[in-house]
């Protein structure tokens, strides 16, 4: 992917250690981009990667990446584990989805994608749904459940509430999304998230992360203007995902892209085991490229042999060049220990899914 690596993305990446991300001050464009002219300007820099301030951003992708919500856990009299979640829909906020671009987002719990729900096969899931929006909304979860829990025919009115209840089955990785009409509108505005069901015997220990591929059609011409993984274009180019050499990485990958019929995930300098839909413990394929249609998903498992920086991106290069690209930073296991926190080891984050301060960026922390 020479095309991609010669892109302007490198310029920002090389500066990723800087703390102040105020790139739109007067300055220099194309500083480190091979083949591109250096440009000094007395005006403003139009930088598609760096946010001036993270406050108005739709999500903190670094926080989202490894945040799994297991719900409020209790055990019922018959020994079944009950997991209660709260999801609140809203549709009136305008958030920054790419530097300088403000878009009317429709969200579950204030972010795109919504929170990742996680349970073990056989658990009882209870989702307390509150519609804080101005339109009808619902939650349609993929998986096996009763018709009345499907979130299709019973729209929840503005200000209304509904409790979805079903058994987590089968194990795998699933999307959940609003299923109100016009469906394309409700999904493309951002009403979706990931729901993971673990098998009763857990998968091997790994550095686990969620990746949702999506897009934004900001000018409403039924074509996406921006493509992302985890809600913000180019985010992981500026903030590479830190992983460890020789350690198993498990990516729960879901494609929620609207308008474009396909999307894909290509990993550089490596191969991964692909478990389609995550519903099997035997991998379907050993590859570095998976193509998914809307709503399709899978689990990717890989280890990096060599330290360094590696790209991952849509091999549909149009999507990559409109934001769907990122970097893994593989730390040298022989190098002295850094202050990198292994988020995965205590991945029981908040027991309550709904927490309003989730979408705060912490750029300093991330770029350490």
């Amino acid at each position, binding site marked *: 992917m020479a095309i991609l690596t010669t892109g302007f993305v490198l310029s920002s990446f090389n500066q990723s250690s800087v703390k102040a991300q105020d790139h739109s001050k007067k300055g220099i464009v194309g500083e480190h981009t091979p*083949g591109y002219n250096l440009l000094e300007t*007395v*005006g403003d820099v*139009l*930088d598609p990667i760096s946010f001036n301030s993270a406050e108005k951003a739709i999500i903190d992708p670094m926080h989202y990446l490894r945040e799994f919500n297991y719900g409020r856990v209790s055990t019922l009299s018959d020994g079944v584990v009950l997991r209660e979640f709260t999801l609140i829909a809203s549709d009136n906020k305008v958030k920054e989805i790419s530097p300088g*671009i*403000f878009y009317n987002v429709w969200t579950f719990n204030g972010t795109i994608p919504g929170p990742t729900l996680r349970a073990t096969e056989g658990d009882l899931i209870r989702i307390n749904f509150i519609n804080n929006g101005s339109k009808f909304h619902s939650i349609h979860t993929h998986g096996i459940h009763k018709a009345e829990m499907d979130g299709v025919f019973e729209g929840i009115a503005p200000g209304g509430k509904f409790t979805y209840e079903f058994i987590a089955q089968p194990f795998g990785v699933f999307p959940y999304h609003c299923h109100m009409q016009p469906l394309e509108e409700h999904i493309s505005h951002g009403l979706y998230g990931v729901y993971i069901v673990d098998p009763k015997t857990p998968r091997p220990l790994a550095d686990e992360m969620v990746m949702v591929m999506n897009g934004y059609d*900001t*000018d409403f011409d039924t074509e996406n*203007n921006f493509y992302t993984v985890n809600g913000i274009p180019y985010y992981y180019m500026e903030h590479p995902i830190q992983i460890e050499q020789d350690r198993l990485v498990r990516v729960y990958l879901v494609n929620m892209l609207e308008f474009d019929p396909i999307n894909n995930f290509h990993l550089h300098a490596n191969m991964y085991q692909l478990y389609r839909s995550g519903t099997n413990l035997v991998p379907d394929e050993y590859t570095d490229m998976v193509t998914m249609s809307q709503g399709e998903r899978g689990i990717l498992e890989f280890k990096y042999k060599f330290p360094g920086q590696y790209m991952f991106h849509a091999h549909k290069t149009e999507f990559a060049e409109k934001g769907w690209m990122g970097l893994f930073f593989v730390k040298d296991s022989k190098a002295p220990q850094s202050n990198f926190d292994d988020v995965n080891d205590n991945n029981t984050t908040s027991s309550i899914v709904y927490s309003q301060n989730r979408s705060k960026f912490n750029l300093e922390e991330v770029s350490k």
Partner: protein
Amino acid sequence: MEKEERSIYRHISGKKLIAFAIIPFVVLTAMILFLFSPIGQSFLNSGVPMPEVTIEKIEFQEGRIVAFIRNTGPVDITVAQADINDRIQLAAIEPSRSLPRLTEAQVIIPFPWNPAEPYEVGITTSDGARFSKNVEAAAQVLTPNVEQVLLFAIIGAYVGIIPIMIGLLWYPFIRRLNTNKYNFFLSLTAGLLVFLGIDAVLESNEIISENVAAIFNGQVLIVMVVIVSFLVLLYASETLTQRAAKKSVSANYSTSSLSSSSASTTSQQQQELIKPLAISLMIAIGIGLHNFGEGLAISAAVLLGKAALGTFLIVGFTLHNTTEGLAIVAPIAKSGQVMIRKLIVMGFIAGAPTIAGAWIGGFLYSPLAAVIFLSVGAGAIFQVVYSIVSWISHTSSRNRKSLINASTIAGFAIGMLIMYTTGLLI
């Protein structure tokens, strides 16, 4: 009634008169201030104002693409991102990313573009709306140097001056024609010119709709400029002929003591001589303005690297412009004395603007300026057509003939046909 009114106004003092003059302005100011006040705004805020950005020009510089943009919408905007071919790019914007109404900015995008390939430049504003403009073939923007200036001057001379001079050579031939045939050629000229006038208006309209924002009311601008230049040139040519006639009359008075009746015949004779000359001059000026537009078109084609198109344009305009020489010659052909020097001057007036057009089109193209030049040209051409038609009707009535006859109609139709046919080569 009228008397009463007059008496009322007579009673108004000077102070009151001034007050009456000022009050409309005060009321207007108050009304405007009210509309912009929060109360006025709350009345008017019923719709959603949509931002609009017009990309007026795209320049391909060494290793970068520069888009000249203007906020042509009803609200202030902030430019957020830029793209090439719908792929997001890092860019700079000068002087600032925030554009108040009608202000302009340059978006500078470092990009290794390839010559002759088509490009689309897009600008996305803070609300996610994207505005774009296509360029058919990228070509390095020219910086004026001696070579380029000479090249365009040679092309301009080749297309503008030489063909017109060739056309002027028909002068002696037209002189010998009888009235019918002469009127045929005059009408032919009118036909040629009408075609050129329409062509200029359509060309302006095309430029306006592709490059100039709707806010400038381009179509109205074209019509306005055409009408105004028509009227101004009409006035100028009338004054010109009248003054010349008067001068010759007064000169006659001073040299001889002729009776008033003979003076008037002399003046008429003079007019017979001066009027066609004025018409020819006006034709030369009108064609000159038209050729300015041709110069713009040629250098634009050369700039775009369309070698084939450039060649065809040059061949086409060369043939086309030979007939323009004929147009200049026709009115003066019957006016007695041979005026070789004047003819050459008029040839230059008509042809030289091609060179200027080529320079301007090549080095500092502005769509709005091009449209104005073309529209002035169209107005001038229509004024000339008017003069020719009145001249034909003048000569026909002297010969007791109707303006509408086989030779004039045929001439007019064939004139337009010639232009259309030679125009196909372009």
